[in-house]
């Protein structure tokens, strides 16, 4: 029994940033990289299933990303996953969710897992698309924004809660194997122990390129292309300047004016 969790190394912008010369992305110097917040929950859910089954399941982490993304992969391995797969190819620099899903579909074929989890979305772009595009390519059952999961190795069906607008949840059963995108709050993700972090460095990671998966730049063509990236026009926010005391005094005044007090 195997659970495959697809994770992403996300880019967090510094407080100040500049665009790249071609105007199609932010200059790399202005990023910090991190494991996507949502993916912590997806990894945790897989580990909980493994532990509840007495270790009967193997948790494999996959990411599509360059050398940098190894950090995100190791972060997930440090929490207790068995091993990793990292796919990279220079032709993937402009990958969108659909391209990533096409790569992941080949990894799923290769790994033959019983369940696939992704985060519900990534915190940098919020496409909320990779997991469900993957399911579409595989022809697998799928559900997005899963906020509760009841599944143990060998189950033919999982019971899930799908979190809808307004906090309403729909309880459903889904045939396995399935692709589920995991929502914040489904569990309390653990932090890796120091021992876990040390062990993670030694854990096996398969490094693959497109040809290892029988793919080429042409077969993983993106479904969109960035024409231009730019800073949005700022709203009309009036910035309150001054010392902290002055700022607070002005804010108090605004409150009192608006409250008619």
């Amino acid at each position, binding site marked *: 029994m195997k659970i495959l969790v697809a994770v992403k190394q996300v880019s967090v912008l510094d407080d100040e940033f500049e665009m790249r010369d071609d105007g199609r992305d932010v200059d790399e110097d202005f990023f910090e990289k991190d494991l996507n917040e949502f993916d912590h929950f997806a990894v945790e859910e897989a580990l909980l299933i493994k532990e509840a089954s007495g270790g009967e399941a193997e948790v494999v982490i996959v990411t599509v990303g360059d050398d940098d993304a190894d950090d995100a992969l190791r972060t997930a391995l440090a929490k207790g996953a068995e091993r990793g797969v990292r796919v990279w190819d220079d032709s993937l620099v402009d990958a969108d969710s659909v391209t990533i899903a096409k790569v992941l579909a080949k990894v799923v074929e290769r790994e033959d897992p019983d369940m696939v989890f992704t985060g519900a979305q990534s915190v940098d772009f919020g496409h909320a698309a990779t997991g469900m595009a993957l399911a579409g390519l595989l022809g697998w059952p799928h559900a997005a924004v899963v906020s509760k999961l009841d599944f143990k190795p060998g189950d033919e069906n999982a019971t899930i809660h799908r979190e809808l607008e307004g906090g309403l949840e729909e309880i459903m059963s889904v045939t396995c194997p399935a692709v589920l995108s995991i929502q914040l709050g489904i569990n309390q993700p653990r932090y890796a122990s120091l021992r876990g972090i040390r062990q993670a460095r030694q854990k096996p990671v398969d490094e693959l390129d497109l040809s290892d998966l029988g793919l080429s730049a042409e077969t993983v063509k993106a479904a969109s292309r960035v024409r231009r990236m730019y800073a949005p026009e700022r709203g009309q926010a009036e910035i309150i300047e001054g010392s902290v*005391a002055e700022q607070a005094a002005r804010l108090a005044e605004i409150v009192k004016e608006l409250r008619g007090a």
Partner: protein
Amino acid sequence: MAEILVVAGQRDGVLHPATLEAVAAARTVKTGGDSLAVVIISADPDGLAGALSVEGVDEVITVKAGSNDFQPELVEAVVVALAQAREPSLIATAHSVDAWSFAPSAAVMLGSGFASDVLALKSEGSDLIATRAGYAEKVLVDLEFPGRETTLLTIRTNVFEPAGGSSMPKLTAMDAPACETSLNHLGWKEPADAGGIDIPGSDFILSIGRGVSDEGNVEQFLELADEMGATLGCSRPVADNGWLAKARQVGQSGQLAANCRLYIAMGISGSVQHQWGMKHIENIVAVNTDPEASIFSIARYGIVGDMFEIAEELENHF
């Protein structure tokens, strides 16, 4: 002459209101000769056709399903069948949680262009350009879809004014395509009782986000809100961590601050899901250490600074 297809949403037989926003978005790229069709899948689709007969809609396609249950595979099969038969240039649907389940999968089945959470679209010559946000709403991105005959877009909610007016669309009944469905509806779970906390009814909300950083820091904001006469609200991580009741959470999966006139957001970055519950408010004050936080782009007043320092000083005024 091109075809545009809008995929309507319904829950329990009630039309998803954002469907009319997706119609409005689609209309922005509709030109004279184009025809716009809306497809609705439900147990009683004819009953919803009236609500879909808004300005700009030329055709309503009704698909009668066995129930009102959401079945992503059925929606995908309908979209694929219609796209193959009609070759629409654009397929639009609201960026609802249901669409998160079916839109990316339908797009890869079609091999179409795809973008999600789109907040503006336009045509440049024969090219469709879709705009969405990136890097935690700090940048905008214009996307193009080279070489794609069809592009599927999910439209950010609460951006487009819902399509109104009326039209006399042609009604077309379509048989539900055969497909395997692997999800079964078992029931609903309503959000927990609010326990007297009233975010929707409150006219003044002080709201705290992840910037509060620790459970032990929350109490002082409860007290401050009380002194100021505000209801304390929060962003999702604060509720998910159990630091405040879920009923205080503002946003898409929490509460809509429907009657609020003054909203002070402290340590909240301004994610689209948080904005869902508050961006309509006339007077938003943002307090954030990050001058680029997207919350400033919807605020009327901003303080670039530390929420704890500001809070401490504020106490002297109430």
